């Protein structure tokens, strides 16, 4: 009886050791992955910062003004002026097409002669 307990205990220890060994390596792998992700995040943030700086640099008012002046013939861009404020009713919306006439009504001129 006692030897059975000894054997079972030894097997238990071996099993636990094997489990701990695997857990250790799994943890290391996850930590390395986390490190890699952190590094990628950092790089992405750095890239983002550079892109934002470049966006701001490319859109600086001086440059946009120069571009608008260079391309004036094509774009006709002018500084915003008080005259350019409009009213909603000044907007020309496209006129909707007339509905097709399905039931025409006879009127007296229908049979009139074509003047030409």
């Amino acid at each position: 009886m006692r030897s059975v307990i000894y054997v079972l205990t030894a097997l238990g220890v071996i099993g636990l050791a094997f489990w701990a060994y695997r857990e250790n390596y799994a943890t290391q792998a996850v930590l390395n992955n986390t490190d890699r992700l952190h590094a990628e995040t950092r790089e992405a943030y750095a890239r983002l910062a550079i892109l934002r700086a470049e966006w701001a640099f490319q859109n600086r008012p001086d440059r946009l003004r120069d571009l608008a002046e260079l391309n004036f013939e094509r774009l006709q861009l002018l500084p915003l002026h008080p005259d350019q404020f409009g009213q909603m009713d000044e907007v020309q919306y496209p006129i909707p097409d007339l509905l097709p006439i399905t039931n025409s009504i006879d009127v007296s001129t229908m049979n009139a002669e074509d003047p030409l």
Partner: protein
Amino acid sequence: MIRTPLRPLARILEARANGENPDAIEHQNRRIRHEQMRDRDRNRAEGRLLVLGVFFFCAFAVVGARMGLLAVSDPVEPRAHAPGSVIANTRADIVDRNGNILATNLDTHALYAQPPHMVDREGAARKLAKIFPDLNEERLIKDFTGKRKFLWVKKKISPEQMQAVHDIGDPGLLFAPRDMRLYPNGKLAAHIMGGASFGREGVRAAEVIGVAGAEKYFDDYLRDPANAGKPLELSLDLSVQAASERVLDGGMKLMNAKGATSILMDAHTGEVISVVSLPSFDPNNRPRPAVEGDASDSPLFNRSVQGVYELGSTFKIFAAAQAMELGLVNASTMINTAGPMKVGGHRIGEFHNKNYGTISVSQIIEKSSNRGTGRLALMIGKERQQEFLRSLGLFDKSSFEIIEASGSTPLLPSRYTDLSAVTISYGHGISTTAMHLAAGYAAIANGGRAVKPTLLKQNGPVMGDRVMRADVAAASREMLRSVVVGEDGTASFGEVPGYFVAGKTGTADKPKPRGGYYKDKTITTFASMFPAHDPRYVLVVTLDEPVETSSGKPRRTAGWTAVPIAAEMIRRVAPLLGMRPAIEPAEVAGITLTSSN
């Protein structure tokens, strides 16, 4: 345990037989028993103390060992915890009120050399001098071959230059990562940004510290990692600022002025939407401060908060407003402005020795009569005048949040006499900055509440202390409106159709450094607000030594110089602020619906 009886019968009987006291036996046995009990207790207590001692020793040993380990190990970032956001170890960005970037950081590198590790010192020096034309080859050779073990070669290098240095391939030339402060808009709002430079420098990193402007004022905020890289939101509007700079720059050149400043302020919150000081500079490459000559000649000089000048007749409205506030006069009360008028032995004269006779308070402002406001000041009295001007913030340095504002303390007369009160009523004898004036006009514009100029975006209305009644502010605005549209108004060029400009001109002779005034150098100011019936913005334009020569005769008054510039600025800026003109717009041909983004 067998208990030993205290009175063993055998010994008692024996003692009784011998005629001894049997109690002695009991006493002896009791003593022996107590001694045994004492010994046992002591042993047990000693054992417990020992166990406790061992326990404490082990506990302290563990703590000590852990401390020792922590002290000798290299610091590592916690790997297992994923931070919610990236730890911000960089200086925070500065953005305008719409989130456009005004200042940000860029990764770059510094170049340093360790001569003991260098292979070909002279060759490296020669090649470096070729890559960086501003480096001196002989100097580099001397540094590399001398005793120095470490030296910085360049503080900031571009990626192309870095590659070129890499290509030299010398192991003694090394790179240190750097955060560089970048102002993508160049000269725009240069005086507000100020500039940044490096503080303590190391091989792995360097501190970026603000050296002027908002960068220095908000240095602690910008550097604090606790803000997690949250950008600093300013009240400026990038497009309005750009338009203002453009207009003011053009105007300054047209009027042959030495310098110019403009301030556009939200009358209700005190937010400064744009502030321009010309000439300007590029904060990416901040020039060195001038060591000789007049400080105001340097482009670093911020005229809006450092230019402490007499601002002339623009102050007249304060005297009129206070007289109305105190119930001394109303807008149509007639005041005799005829000369001669003597106060404290000094004659008070008018511009070009005019004589306006008896005119109403409203006309005093419209015609800009010195004697008229002087009479009002005498009615008000010097104590009450000081109190009122102080409540408008005209006696203290400006609260505007840039470091240069500490130099904005107004210059006041050392003895405040009746003469001072009279001259101050028309803007002489008191020197303030344009920022002070804008804050004073904002109080009139917003219906009588004091305003503190601020550079930070406000999230709601800011209610200052009441300094005048709403009806007094409204009457003052009507007077200012008449300066622009009245028959004899001095600011007739200031009218912008649809925006109802109200304002007051001010022309002051420039003081000589050794006393007295120049005859041909003026500071001209136009302080305005729009639209007059419900002002939202206050605009102050000041020109330094302008002269308008279109008619052949030099004109140096504000009406001819500062006013047209201010009008043009309002015309350009008001639409950008989303204000539609209040009149019917001119005939517009064919507006079509387009998408906007």
